[in-house]
């Protein structure tokens, strides 16, 4: 009951941002580069949310920002998820020394804080949409791989695996029929939590000027640009933050709700 409510509430919030991003692909109030609006126009009139210090329409920027946030978030979860699940599967099936070596590498990768690793990748490449996706994806792959490894080990220790092997099932079929179906709900929950973290990481990178460069209007960069004029035009310094929180809370709620729905044994004690 609780899980369903949480899940639905999360879906509504994420859906809101998804719709905004989808609409931005086919329609925008203004051209994102259009600076004809007059500087720091207040909300209302021709510009529903006002303009920024260069005269660009804020609503347009926010809509493009939704697209950037989702692109980087989903892109880095794909990168991190593929790398992490593949690495975790290998480590989970590996014999002792290979497993030990992979686990040590994973522990070190995890010891690297996400944001520092992302900053390192950006420093080594350049600030771009691709760098941000690669950097954040790489940084999350360690955590995903370690989780996958533990889940795989747990499944492989079950009697039904021994039974399947004894009756002649090949390892690839064991993975497809027994391992993946058993671990995907937990993985999916973790990946959606990672999606929220990735969106926050992208915002931080952009705030520091290390994210996707203009004309990609990232919410993090919008906030950074609005910081100097927060007293005269507060909308620009508030709206991108609110959208960030809506997206991340939504993703977290979806993850929490899905966990409660998918796994009845994990329902909260109270």
């Amino acid at each position, binding site marked *: 009951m609780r899980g369903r409510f949480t899940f639905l509430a999360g879906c509504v919030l994420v859906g809101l941002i998804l719709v905004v991003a989808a609409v931005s692909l086919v329609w925008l109030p203004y051209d994102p580069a259009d600076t004809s609006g007059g500087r720091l126009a207040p909300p209302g009139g021709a510009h529903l949310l006002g303009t920024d210090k260069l005269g660009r329409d804020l609503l347009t920027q926010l809509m493009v920002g939704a697209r950037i946030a989702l692109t980087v978030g989903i892109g880095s979860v794909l990168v991190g998820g593929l790398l992490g699940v593949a690495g975790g599967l290998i480590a989970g099936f590996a014999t002792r020394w290979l497993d030990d070596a992979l686990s*040590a*590498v994973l*522990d*070190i990768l995890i*010891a*690297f*804080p*996400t*944001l*520092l690793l992302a*900053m*390192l*990748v*950006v*420093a*080594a*490449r*350049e600030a771009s949409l691709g760098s941000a996706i690669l950097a954040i994806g790489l940084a999350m792959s360690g955590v995903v791989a370690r989780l996958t490894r*533990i889940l795989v*080990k*747990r499944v492989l220790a079950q009697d039904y695996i021994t039974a399947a092997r004894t009756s002649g099932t090949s390892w690839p079929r064991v993975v497809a029929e027994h391992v993946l179906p058993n671990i995907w709900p937990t993985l999916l929950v973790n990946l959606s939590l990672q999606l*929220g973290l990735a969106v*926050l990481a992208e*915002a*931080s990178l952009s*705030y*520091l*000027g*290390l994210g996707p460069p203009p004309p990609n209007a990232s919410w*993090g960069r919008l*906030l*950074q640009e609005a*910081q100097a004029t*927060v*007293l005269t035009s*507060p909308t620009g*310094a*508030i709206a991108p*933050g609110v959208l*960030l*929180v809506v997206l*991340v*809370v939504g993703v*977290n*709620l979806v993850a929490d709700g899905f966990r409660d729905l998918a796994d009845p044994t994990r329902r*909260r*004690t*109270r």
Partner: protein
Amino acid sequence: MGRYLLRRTGFLLGSLLAAAALLFVLLRLLPGDPANALLSVGATPEQIAAARRQIGSDVPLPEQFAAWLAGLARLDLGTSFVSRLPVGPEIAARLVVTVPLTLLSFALAVLIALPVGFVAAWRSDRWYGLLLNGVSQLGIAVPVFWIGMLLVTVFALRLRVLPAGGFPRGDWAEPGRALTSLALPVITIALVMSASLIRYVRSATLDVLGSDYLRTARALGSSFAGAMWRHGLRNASVPVISILGIELATTFLGAVVVESVFTLPGLGTLLVEGIAEHDYPVIQGVLAVSTFAVLMIGFAADLAQRLVDPRLRAHVGGGRP
């Protein structure tokens, strides 16, 4: 414990070495020659060669790596391309800001999270328990720099009770002024950090509250406070301590971003400047120091956890999962 300590120390040293290697390799994947950072457009081949000699990028990579490791062992982090000053002392000067910022924020976050997390679990069916839980749910979704911006707007720009940013020139010569300039950054980081901590404290407390041993203790006549004190706290503290290590590391990272909001001359702003100016020795140095700090914190947290939880000590060298 001795054998564990030995193994864990070995792992720490291995990770430090691997981290140094990872830093080196990733930065060398760069498309350009780091010497370009020293040169203006249209430099002659002689100037390029001189620049490469100066920063040592004219020797093969293994030799560069060996030189860097040797430097690290001597705590010599090289010379900045931009300021031409040694990186080590520069980082040390920045740590004077970042370390107090991290520790104060962490302490405040723990002070907030322990009581709030406990109440959120203990009174999880009352409205304020639910409210605290909801607020912490919100807190983990808020970008730390945005909280900083909002606090600056309210307390520095509107109410004018605290400085909006900067740090006194004499560092800690005037402790009062230094502390005032750290006040908003510390509150910013602590608010965001405490949100995730509250969730861990809450779930650890919920586990204890629903446990059989607590019910047994109560049935045998212990008061709630007595049973909590004797059995609950120690059990609840095990998962919380392991998460504290991670949180301390996260606080340190929060500091990296928040320093930019408040223009504090710390490690974070040094890193951002280094990246903007392609100043590789600075980037490498800051990342090496931060990563080592994070690894050391993890080491300390693991040891602390074993001290609290005898069950972990019993499994030394024991079975693998």
